[in-house]
């Protein structure tokens, strides 16, 4: 049973455009939702994270939007750049006590020059 569903699997965006990646979760106990960015040959790196007490969090060109009632959250990359080309993973965790992150299957983003 996949607890975090991520879409699309791959995405091509023109330079300067907006990249949008969506995730949906099933476990209502999840209360921590990070996004990780992974470049080829590297480990995933924490990009931005949100908790359900806010509906949006912005860090530079990266924004997480969170819809608790729909159990969905998304990553928006504004003014996408070729350097943003990477694989992006959403994840979720109950976040209390001894818990672990459940990851989506990832989205390969290519930003064309």
């Amino acid at each position: 049973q996949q607890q975090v569903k991520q879409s699309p699997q791959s995405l091509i965006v023109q330079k300067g455009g907006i990249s949008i990646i969506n995730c949906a979760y099933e476990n209502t106990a999840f209360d921590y939702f990070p996004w990780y960015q992974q470049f080829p040959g590297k480990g995933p790196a924490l990009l931005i994270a949100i908790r359900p007490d806010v509906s949006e969090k912005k860090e530079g060109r990266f924004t997480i939007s969170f819809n608790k009632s729909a159990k969905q959250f998304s990553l928006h990359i504004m003014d996408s750049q070729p350097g943003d080309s990477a694989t992006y993973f959403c994840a979720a965790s109950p976040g209390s006590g001894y818990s672990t992150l459940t990851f989506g299957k990832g989205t390969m983003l290519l930003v064309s020059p």
Partner: protein
Amino acid sequence: DAGITQSPRYKITETGRQVTLMCHQTWSHSYMFWYRQDLGHGLRLIYYSAAADITDKGEVSDGYVVSRSKTENFPLTLESATRSQTSVYFCASSKTDYGYTFGSGTRLTVV
């Protein structure tokens, strides 16, 4: 250097052999994790640990064992490697159970 280090970076082994992947972190983080990454499956949890001598199974633990005698080390052992264990393995650590920091990974090929 401070950080989380995985070794070896690449490994080729034969079916049936035992192989150990190493993970070392210098932050004294309590939590450590092992994930495997496969195309179409994303990152799947193999084992995790809250502290020395405390380990728990993850989603795909069959065929793997771990130990954590020291806080900084969390080796992953494939007892008898199978071709289905060909994957990229990532170790991660965390001060709490949020905000993982991942190593650079070990690419394991079982032939």
